[in-house]
């Protein structure tokens, strides 16, 4: 195999790997680096379960090549908590029962983190449109939206 050597930063830690030219970042994260918190629901960019933040952009890691990670910063769900202190979004997802099966949760947490970084005080509609790239089949989104609203107010210190 003609492997491409990639050097990158994941959740603040330096990481290196070899990958095929056509291997997706999702495959690299899950299969090569063991970051199984990044989920695959479709592999075609339609469900958002594989969401990660690449530098400061929210992306579907199934639509990004592993080789594109070279020299970039990647944030996944595994990097959200500080030790045993959960990120406010994680805490509020638990308190509001914003997950049932939980397979969509890592993607939603990452998408919500990106949303709140750009818009710390979103309206309900802004949350709904901001999270429209993430599918959840269990919850009907109600409790997810409430959890994000609540986390946003905690993060603003309100």
């Amino acid at each position, binding site marked *: 195999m003609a492997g491409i050597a990639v050097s990158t930063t994941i959740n603040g830690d330096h990481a290196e790997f070899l990958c095929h030219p056509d291997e997706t970042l999702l495959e690299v994260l899950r299969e090569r680096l063991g970051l199984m918190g990044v989920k695959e629901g479709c592999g075609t960019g339609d469900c958002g379960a594989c969401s990660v933040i690449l530098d400061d952009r929210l992306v579907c890691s199934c639509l990004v090549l592993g080789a594109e990670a070279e020299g970039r910063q990647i944030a996944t769900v595994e990097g959200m908590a500080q030790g045993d202190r959960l990120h406010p979004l994680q805490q509020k997802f638990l308190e509001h029962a914003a997950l049932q099966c939980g397979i969509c949760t890592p993607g939603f947490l990452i998408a919500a983190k990106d949303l709140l970084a750009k818009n710390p005080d979103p309206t309900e509609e802004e949350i*709904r449109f901001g999270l429209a790239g993430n599918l959840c*089949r269990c*919850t*009907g*989104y109600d409790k997810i939206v409430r959890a994000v609203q609540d986390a946003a107010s905690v993060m603003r210190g309100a």
Partner: protein
Amino acid sequence: MTFDPSHAARSFSSVGTRPIRPDGVDKVTGRARYGADFNMPGQLIGRILRSPHAHAVIRKIDTSKAEQFPGVKAVVTAADLPDLTDGDTSMYDILDNCMARNKALYDGHAVAAVAAIDARTAKQALKLIDVEYELLPHVTDVDQAFAADAPLINETIFTTGVDPKPDRASNVSMRSQFGHGDVDAGMAEADFVVARTFKTEQTHQGYIEPHACVANVSSDGTADLWVCTQGHFVYRQHCAQLLGLEASRLRVTSSEIGGGFGGKTHVWAEPVALALSRKAGRPVKLVMTRDEVFRATGPTSATSIDVKIGAMKDGTIIAADATLRYSCGPYAGSWAEVGAMTAFACYKLENVRTVGYEVLVNRPKTAAYRAPSAPMAAFAVESAIDELAKKVGMDAVDFRIKNAAQEGTKASYGPVYGPIGIGPTLEAVKNHPHMKASLGKNQGRGMACGFWFNFGGQTCTDLNIGMDGTVSLAVGTVDVGGSRASLSLVAAEELGIDYAQVRAVIADTSSLGYNDMTDGSRGTFSSSMATISAARNAIKILRARAAQMWDIPVEDVTWEKGHAVAKGETHGNLPNLSLKEIAAASGTTGGPIAGHSEIVADGAGVSFATHICDIEVDPETGATKVLRYTVVQDAGKAVHPTYVEGQYQGGAAQGIGWALNEEYIYGKDGRLQNAGFLDYRIPVCSDLPMIDTQILEIPNPNHPYGVRGVGETSIVPPLAAVANAVSNAVGVRMQHIPMSPPRILAALEA
């Protein structure tokens, strides 16, 4: 198990609270392991080759090139899964569905599989398998398949349930009939009659996690299977039977499950993964693509339903009649029967008849989807009921209240109801502020009722008390949406200890007795029953140990709020012993303390819901927007109310997607044209409003805490509630689900 029926008035300390679920932290930190999140040393990757044809004879499969491809370790076809079903036709159908034997019966039907050193090699190898097909005429539409001249899918199918037995094979595998009274006489007497035909399209459960498993068959005859499933014990039985393994030698571990909704109740890829592993002598991981999930798993039935209902001037329904045709894929199923049973279950009817037909089509084998078959029947019936109310000149809610079933009503499907919630949900809706809110231009409001049986089934639970006084609860019903939290609450309640002292886990098939799968809304209902009885058994032992520690007769020891209490004049001043103290002494008082329970959880209470929907329709484009949605449902007793609300909201959202957008679209070539989330399109966050919920608690007399199943009923009313809202908004009766923009425009122009 007999229970004290006075529980309705009891007060609870843990049950009814809303603590954080025990599996929560792992799920928000990415540590929880789902089907695809598990690997074994030396594992191979399996992939399945699927038929591109809707109906074809498989003339020949040449796997030789694939077998020789570097990195390929095994190739299997039907020949590697010999028929061991011994005349069990439903198991034979499962086997044939896992791997086509003589004919490919739908676009997506598995025909061969490979295991290779990596996914890329496996994928390449699939292309080297040569399958020679002889195309046959196909049929994918339920009405066309029902017709006498339709292409025949299975020449051994003769309609059952008709007398005399038909002399020729057809695509109608079963006719079933329910009801009582004289429908024709009743209809003749009616002052008003509504008769309509309705259609619903096929939908998929749409769980976000694709099917995934890791199979490991060892040369000593033992095997392990890691899999996302709603029922690992059932998977073990099916896989063991299909592979010729002894059940006790196959250990199945259920992973965290990323949604099922009925779609993970049947084996598909698991027997194939086991066959590959057996042949290759190595573990095999098999994960479906989303395309495969759509083409080969799920879905629910497409239907076509005739409804006729007659009412008297005073609003009494005098007769109700329905004929329901349900597609079931290329194999017989039992879906139409269930539709026929549920259709009129909400009402008190003197004369009622439902006839269900199960129809074979060249589409994937249908699987249960949340209250399977009930939503379509409710769509047809509740649409006709709305129209009839208008004809009679009554309010839609009042008309339903007048005709609602009550305790003592003989249900249209046979039994006599105990205490039920249909009347109370209707009264709650009548008084709900949502019903009184004003509507704007192009907006409409609809409401509808729904019913589901709920199920109990075989259940086995172990409750082990650790020496440190914490409790581990091992259950065998897969947790699909928070049941470990509810069952921990129940154990805490019964033992009189803190929720935090209990940890519930899902045990694998080698660690616990048999459990039916988590379906029929049975997870919390049945496992809580078993947990209560296991806890009561543990309490017996705890009391005996306390008696021993105090050296007093066990009859003088009671159990109160997590403590053994000595009773009677002579022992009254002994200080209470806590569960923790008794547990700490267990090593010297007789060993470990545990309670077990094995039950058939009879008496699942039926459940009813009424939903309200406001919708806006753009008359130019036919686009719709749900503005407001309210769910009122009877839970019996809500063990963890937040998760009960979640079930209500999730079912409503799925029903809204079904009502407005989701459908399987087949081309003339019999191929599925929208096998992906982009083109199938389930509701996204911006499609929906907040979903308001109201939990009613009409205790189930057969459960010690009054619990009824809550998981499924919530998907029954939405199709009709949304259709009634759209019909009211546009002034035309909608008869075809989903009400996608083109269908709404067509209805407006008709």
